[in-house]
């Protein structure tokens, strides 16, 4: 190789290097508007390609924006010399292996290493926290160890939050683990107790609430609230259904109220709890919840209002020509072929498969929509009628949509439940039931019977209240009461007493016993 050639090559490399560095430094130069972050760079950019710093700001990707900066993690990342992904993969394999071989200490150490390498990979945090709290914890036989691992999973998530402060799902997960893993697991009784006594964890979490408020449902609720805040500030919900997401905070209050009654706390405290649950549920209903359509929101509380609006317009519409709807129906019916009419008239239990289809068709044909009704009206009222019809249909549609969303979170059930649970009758009824069960467990049959009877009396009072006229149709409550009645029966059987004929809640038994038996398999 001639010296000239070698020299030319060196120059070539040098020029290449300079070019690369120039491009890089241009891309990476700090924005002029580093201080004022969002939204402003559009005007400044114009035709210019946005540089890296701007892009980083716009998508909130700079380390400082994402969360606490972790020097150790950064060091490790650099030490892998760009093979971070490979290293994380190997560690992931290793973690799986440790999990399979039940080497928990090494598993958690490896998880820590993975998250050091990939601190902003949200799924890693979520997946492995779940692993710790749900999968690893149940491997232990000792419930105290299980509890420790649940907390370890939560701590893992909290680590994730420190690195990703704007990630609502991590915060939400913490809420979920604290509420549901601790509150509804098989060991929930022990877990809730351990959680209340866990000074260290509360200290570590810098949560200095009074000991009485260390209920997992309340603590978890605060985390749901924090994640809602983040979403309100514009964080992405990812794939979570918004209506479900926002329901968990008020639901935690419901669960809390239920849980303290299970623990035997009644009276004013229970009342307050249920009242708060009702209020928060109402707030939830008043919140604007994004729908699947972009920029369209609904409020769950609105369904009744829509009903009213629709009914109002229908009433006005029908007032133009009373009986018109029925008339149209009749006309249509008469025009139908005889075979169809015959099928329609056959009582449902005698219909053949063919009849069913025909009857179905007839029923559909007989529906008179508001619009069809309005178009039959003649004279000056016709345009008004058509407008009313359109509005009525719109409100009906809105109410229907609203109810669809309500069903996702069982909105009406919980609204009703919070309403009746805070009545003195319900609280007393529950207290008596609790005492009755306690007495039964202590084999104090006389007291048990007395308590149960008082309990039923209280329920009676509640059902008889005008503002709870529909309550006895509530399937869930009804079945619950049937369950209590069966315990009461046991008490009576043990004390060789017959079940009273004129039992105070006979109507409830009649309504719900069948379903209860079906559910209990008796």
């Amino acid at each position, binding site marked *: 190789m001639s010296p000239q050639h070698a020299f030319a090559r060196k120059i070539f490399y040098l020029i290449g290097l300079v070019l690369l560095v120039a491009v890089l430094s241009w891309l990476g130069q700090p924005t002029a508007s580093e201080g004022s972050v969002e939204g402003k760079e559009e005007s400044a950019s114009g035709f210019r390609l946005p540089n890296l710093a701007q892009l980083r700001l716009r998508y909130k990707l700079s380390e400082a924006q994402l969360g606490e900066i972790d*020097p*150790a993690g950064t060091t490790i990342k650099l030490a892998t010399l760009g093979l971070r992904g490979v290293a994380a993969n190997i560690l992931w394999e290793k973690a799986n292996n440790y999990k*399979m*071989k*039940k*080497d*928990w*200490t*090494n598993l*958690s*150490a490896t998880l*820590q*290493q993975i998250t*050091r390498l990939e601190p902003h990979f949200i799924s890693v945090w979520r997946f492995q926290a779940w692993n710790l709290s749900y999968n690893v914890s149940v*491997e*232990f*036989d*000792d*419930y105290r*160890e299980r509890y*420790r691992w649940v907390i370890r999973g939560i701590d893992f998530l909290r680590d994730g939050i420190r690195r990703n402060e704007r990630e609502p799902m991590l915060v939400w997960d913490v809420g979920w683990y604290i509420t549901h893993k601790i509150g509804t697991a*098989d*060991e929930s009784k*022990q877990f809730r107790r351990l959680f209340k006594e866990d000074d*260290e964890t509360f200290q570590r979490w810098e949560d200095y609430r009074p000991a009485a408020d260390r209920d997992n449902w309340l603590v978890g609720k605060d985390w749901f609230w924090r994640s809602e805040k983040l979403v309100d500030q514009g964080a992405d919900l990812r794939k979570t259904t918004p209506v479900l997401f926002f329901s968990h905070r008020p639901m935690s209050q419901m669960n809390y109220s239920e849980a303290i009654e299970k623990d035997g706390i009644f009276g004013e405290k229970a009342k307050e709890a249920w009242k708060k649950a009702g209020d928060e549920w109402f707030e939830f209903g008043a919140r604007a919840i994004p729908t699947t359509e972009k920029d369209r929101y609904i409020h769950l509380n609105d369904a009744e209002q829509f009903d009213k609006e629709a009914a109002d317009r229908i009433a006005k519409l029908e007032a133009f020509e009373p009986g018109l709807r029925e008339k149209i129906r009749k006309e249509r019916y008469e025009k139908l072929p005889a075979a169809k009419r015959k099928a329609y008239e056959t009582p449902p239990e005698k219909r053949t498969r063919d009849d069913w289809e025909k009857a179905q068709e007839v029923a559909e044909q007989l529906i008179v929509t508001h619009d069809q009704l309005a178009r039959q009206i003649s004279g000056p009222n016709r345009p008004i009628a058509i407008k009313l019809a359109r509005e009525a249909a719109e409100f009906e549609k809105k109410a229907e949509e609203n109810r669809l969303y309500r069903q996702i979170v069982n909105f009406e059930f919980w609204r009703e439940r919070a309403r009746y649970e805070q009545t003195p009758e319900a609280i007393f009824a529950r207290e008596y039931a609790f005492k009755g069960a306690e007495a039964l467990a202590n084999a104090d049959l006389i007291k048990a019977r007395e308590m149960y009877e008082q309990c039923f009396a209280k329920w009676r009072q509640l059902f008889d209240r005008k503002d709870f006229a529909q309550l006895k149709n509530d399937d869930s409550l009804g079945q619950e009461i049937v369950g209590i009645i069966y315990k009461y029966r046991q008490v009576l059987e043990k004390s060789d007493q017959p079940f009273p004929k004129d039992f105070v809640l006979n109507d409830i038994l009649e309504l719900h016993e069948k379903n209860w038996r079906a559910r209990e398999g008796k």
Partner: protein
Amino acid sequence: MVIENPLPHFAEWFPAAAASWLLVVGVLIVAALVLGCLVSVLRYGPRLGFTVALGTAVSGVVDLVCMSPRRVAALSWLAVKEAIRRRVILVFVLFVVILLFAGWFLDVGSSEPAKLYLSFVLTATTYLVLLLALFLSAFSLPTDVKSRTIQTVVTKPVRPSEIVLGRMLGFTIVGTALLLLMSVVSYFFVTRGVSHTHEVLAENLRPAGPAVDGRQPLSGTTESSQGHRHRLFVDAAGKGVIESEFGHWHEIQVGGTSDKPSFEVGGPEGMFQARVPIYGKLRFRSREGVDIDRGINVGDEWFYRSFIQGGSVAAAIWTFSNIRESQFPDGLPVEMNIEVFRTYKGNIEKGVLGSLSLRNPRTGLIVEVKVFESKDFTPLFIFVPRKITEFSGADVISSKRETPDKGVEFSPPQNLLDRRLAERKEFDLFNDLVADGEVEVWLRCLEPSQYFGAGQPDLWLHAADASFEVNFFKGYFGIWLQMVLVIAFGVTFSTFLSGPVAMLATVGAMIGGFFSDFLTRLSQHAVLGGGPFEAIIRLVRQENLMTELEPGLRTTAAQMADRVAEAGLWVIAHILPPFTEFNYADWVAYGFDITWDPWIVVPALRALAFLVPVFVAGCFFLKTREVAQ
């Protein structure tokens, strides 16, 4: 501690191992000779070729035999000098820096801090020392060739074998010195790192029972330190006990007056031990009362442990041999680590009940020594006293029942059982239960439909306590073996490759060695997703491991290519040293003594079995290359 691949004792292992080693080496020698002749014939023609090849082989053997210790020593000394000149001490500095910043990675709040710390220092040392060994060994000879200093050396009456051995020895000496230094620093780092005490505040203790002589027994917890606290009891006499938590306990001294006691808590105890275990041989008794090799699988992915059903005759049975009265004059200290599997919730505040029995394999006498409450992933200690007076019924006589092909077999035969044995009220461990040094330990689960799981090393006799310090250094011996292997491979590769290439080749050998287990499974077609070619197809087409590949020419071709690749992988997996076998981190971390036989002797010999051929190969490569370019 989990021992997935138990090693046989030296005496059992050696004859077969030596034979297979000789066989492999023989095959390799023949292969090398054939290859050498072939190359030689190609280069020099048939007549001269054979002569040259055989001459080289003969003089090579002479080289190996006639090595001069003084020359080897001089060359080692040169290698040491060179290593020092290349600033190996920097590696030590780096190690110290890593330790200084280790706090970033180590969570003292972990439930087994000692294990974490030990794993960390051992891993860090391994990586650093292996890296050092790699760089030293792979670049030394190529540098000499490049700077031509080798020419001055080989024109002296130096044999290639002496150069190779000198290099290997010299770098080993340097590495050993460094390793010693690191181990001493690590030792202090670990013991200091997890050392802590707890405060005990009198106001946090509650009375526990009636006062005696005005002194109140107390119970409560210590204050938190390193993420945990201990339960604590102080009896009326003022004697305190701190319960074990996170794998250790503390000594406590109670002072002060009865109404104003003061407490002094010592450092952690029991964190660093080196228990000398005696392992038995495990078999299971099925629910049907037949002895089998494995118990029930409760759905674990990992087959290490298998399970016995509670409330049945099922049992896990360990047979210990060579149990001598002189070794256990007071009784048998049994320790175990069992896994609990519940099929129903039961009382979750309590562990599942289990029982431990001893059985005399000759007479069939079974004595149930202890009923205990299980706790999994934590060692349980049961001491079987010499004189067994307290035992909980179930004292029966039982034969071992097996069903080999020829029918049911009982040992001892049922008609020979002496049923009167069980009527006694007191048993002597050695007279009644140990027969010719053999005794069986039976583990049973007492609650119906709950299960206990165990693997062979999950129950052991705690024969003695060795020194933790010695064990710690034995742990470093494992790293030492790995280092020596890396040096040997590095030097050998560097006899015929340039520095960077030799380094890559050595790294390849190391990676292959570290993953030899995986390679073996890959070559046996036991890995999901197929061999390398199939894997490439899956990667490119983004198919997961489970889906069947579309049948067709491409798939068939890939799978056929994989068969070939698998054969190659099999060979590679078997000629590379299994580095993970020399990893003693678990022993040290879990506090088990790395017993000489087999855990030191056998791996050391295995390493030697690799070192010798690698060394010989290095000599031949150096001999047959031109050192001047």
